[in-house]
């Protein structure tokens, strides 16, 4: 994957993880699953890339992790959003809103010009 697109992808993935965790603490598999559901399967999260992203976010202090027992009585590592993570989610949501509004604006202008 070329570096510039991976940067975007990585940032996006982290935002999606933060969003997924803002509802409730979850284990890795559940996060992947939740992102699929939330995006109506529009994003196919490469499962193997989810865990490195979680490690990076742990290091940044956005999330913490703890071992809990699942509904099926298995030990699993759950990830929880921290306050820093929540602020990050807000910031990224706002940034995303601005960016997408700008892009939408551009797209609308171009549509108004009659371009395809």
């Amino acid at each position, binding site marked *: 994957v070329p570096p510039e697109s991976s940067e975007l992808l990585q940032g996006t993935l982290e935002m999606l993880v933060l969003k997924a965790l803002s509802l409730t603490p979850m284990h890795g598999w559940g996060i992947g699953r939740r992102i699929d559901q939330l995006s109506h399967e529009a994003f196919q999260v490469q*499962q193997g890339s989810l865990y490195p992203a979680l490690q990076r976010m742990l290091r940044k202090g956005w999330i913490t992790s703890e071992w809990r027992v699942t509904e099926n009585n298995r030990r699993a590592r759950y990830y929880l959003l921290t306050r820093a993570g929540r602020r990050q989610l807000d910031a990224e949501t706002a940034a995303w809103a601005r960016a997408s509004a700008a892009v939408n604006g551009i797209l609308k202008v171009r549509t108004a010009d009659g371009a395809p």
Partner: protein
Amino acid sequence: MSFISDGLERLRALLLRGRQEREMAEELRFHVDREAAERIRAGDTPESARRAALLAFGGVEQYKESVRDARGVRLLEELGADLRYALRGLRRNPGFTATAVLVLGLGLGATTAVFSVMRAVVLAHLPYPDPDQLVIVVEKNSPTNIWSISTADATAIREQQRSFEAWGVISRDEAALSGTGHPERIAVARASAGYFKAVGVPVARGRLIEPRDEGQDAPPVAIVTNALAERILGGADNALGRAITLDGVSHTVVGVLPPGRDELGGARAPVWPALKLRAPVRRGPFWLRGFGRLKQGVTLEMAATDLAAISRSILPLWSDFPDSLAKLTPISLRERLVGQARGQVGLFAGAVLLVLLLAITNVATLVLVRASAREPEVAVRVMLGAGRGRIARLLVTENIMVTLAAAAAGLLLASFGLKLAVSQLPNLPRIQNATLDWRAVTFALVAALLSGILVSLSPVAALSSRRGIGADARRAGTGRRTNAVRSALVTAEFALALPLLVRAGLLINSFVRLSRVDPGFDPEGLVAVGVALPQARYPDAPEIQRFWQQAEQRLTGIPGVMAFGLASDIPPDLSGNNDNFNLVDHPVPAGQSEPASPWYYVTSGYFGALGVSLLDGRLFTVADSGNGPPAVVVSRTWANKYFPKERPVGRQLIQGGCYACPRTTIVGVVGDIKNLGLATPDEAVYGPVTQSNSRSMNLVVRTSASTPATFRALREAVRALDTELPLQESTIVDRFDDSLTDPRRWTAVLGAFAAVGMALAALGVFGLMSYVVRQRRREIGVRLALGAQPGTVTKLIVARGMRYALLGSGIGLVMTLALTRRLGTLLFGVSPKDAPTIAVTASLLLGVALVACWLPGRRAARILPLEAISTE
């Protein structure tokens, strides 16, 4: 704040590595299980669900690596992995590890100990301010003939010199200390005020000697060491103003030196009285040591020019000393204190460095063997995609671990070795200061790291030059290159071992010669008691002569005493009392230096006690009294040197440059004895005690009674004459033994180094040839199967090993012959290029090498052909 949590998380990751790895695995397992369960619920079979789950996840190992990467400790983790891997490898090979650690530990330990000694003895800072400005001034008329300066010299220098900031003189002597309990003889250093000023060390209590103390009428004062004040004056606080009696003269203590200080300017004494110089009446006698502190910016050469001008200016003033070659000469104090020790310690350091190099070479060959045994493993790793850099790092890590362990072992050995050196070589200056300080530890660690890198060089080079890994991987260990490196290493070992052995051989040879020297008499049963008469009670010739005469008479009738006499010095007299002379029949040309000889004062009985025979003329008689014409007896060597073709008896000489004095006549020639120690020539001149007025003599008796009983009887004989005289008791046998102690120890240590060196070289060639035999097992098996004689096979192996031994020894021989410069002064009766010694030591080394090659050679001959061919 994110950098803090980042750092903490990294730290946590590093500290909790094992747990994290386990958690990662568990998390992964959970994920796959859960995914599979999901798929089964959707209708998949268990097996295909699991496979699909894994597939959906992507590469598991890849995933783990990227998680590890994300944790950000990869480099550190790799290092940790290297270390763990290395430890595991070393544990699996305890033989290799123990040998390598021990061999290198020995080398490092010996090097560290010698380095510590060298630092204390040769490189140490002298304990004076600006020590490199300090010089000693001596008289010198040839590169080897150096002696003290006279009162006339000292006075002239004081008046005319322009080089010194401070200038003084010192006279070292012994004195009877009394008035503070049991009388004893102690060393005293009488010094002028300028001496203390030049040295630049302040007193702890009171004051230094000052110019006003030097006047003839000034009350006698002295400075004492803290140790002496503690011992007899009730401590430094109570010492000031107390009186101590030296040779019957009461001295007031005016100053106490700082604790621990008993050496000033290279002289060591517990008592330092003020030196009082009378105006000179002739140029001699030469009895003082000059001492100066150079002005800033004045070099030794400039001072030498200055002093040479003074020598020229005073030469015409004194007719008794016509030697125009004699120059007042400055010698740097450091050179004086360190000069001789540097030669000995240098030899030591050279030897120990050879041992260290041998140890490193040996460990390098061990590492190579291991590296070639591990070639398949390494090849597999390379094929699996391990980087060469990573493998090289692994090898270096492992070797550095070995060498660091060796450094630890070495430091342990060094601390023992250092204790041993300090107790065994007490005559090296300042060796008491030798400690294993942080510099020595740093030295060992740096040496260890360097050794680690050095021993890794060849396997790493072999690694990077390897081509066609795949082809090699199975049939490993056949690398020609590795063998070439090993052969070179083994050759180098012999090249290092031979110089070591030759040096040890030369020292042993020299020592044996020295201990076999005939002292010229039988030292067994000779007992001596030294007596010194204080000037206060024995001011002039009549009292002195009466005492010595009565003392000698009292020796008759002591049970067991067979013969007795008096002598000013007794063998081996390492201090050496010299006087110059000029032969009336064969005078030296005008302006040339007069010859000098060891000069003793004895009674005729002394020759009888020692068993020295009269070869010509007569011994001393009553005619040789204080009023009679001066007479001397000379040794055979002296006679042969100065009168090679004539009869010396009846000839005359001018003694001590006193041309106004009556001529001295040679009245007899006696056999040679080793007056100055076993290593010195036998030249000696003896004058009669009656003509010397020396206050210091030794009563010498040959006895069949026990030594303690004889000492007791001699003590009683002296006490009957004077109860306050301190006595010095010794036996001649002990004195000779003591004189051999140092050479014996030097020889033992160097011999031990050489033995270690030879063992290492032998081990090296043994290891190489054993390896060659293992490698060529198949080939040898085939040869034997085809009818080769076992003897031929052995010969083949031995010949190959001896090729390296011979080549290495040849290179070592060239090195030995090229590096003999410093050795000469440490040897007695042996040239540094002594052919028999070199031949014997080289044969010894090659003999040991032959055994070391023959053992694997014999093993080769016993290979069972069938077994060798069928096993691969």
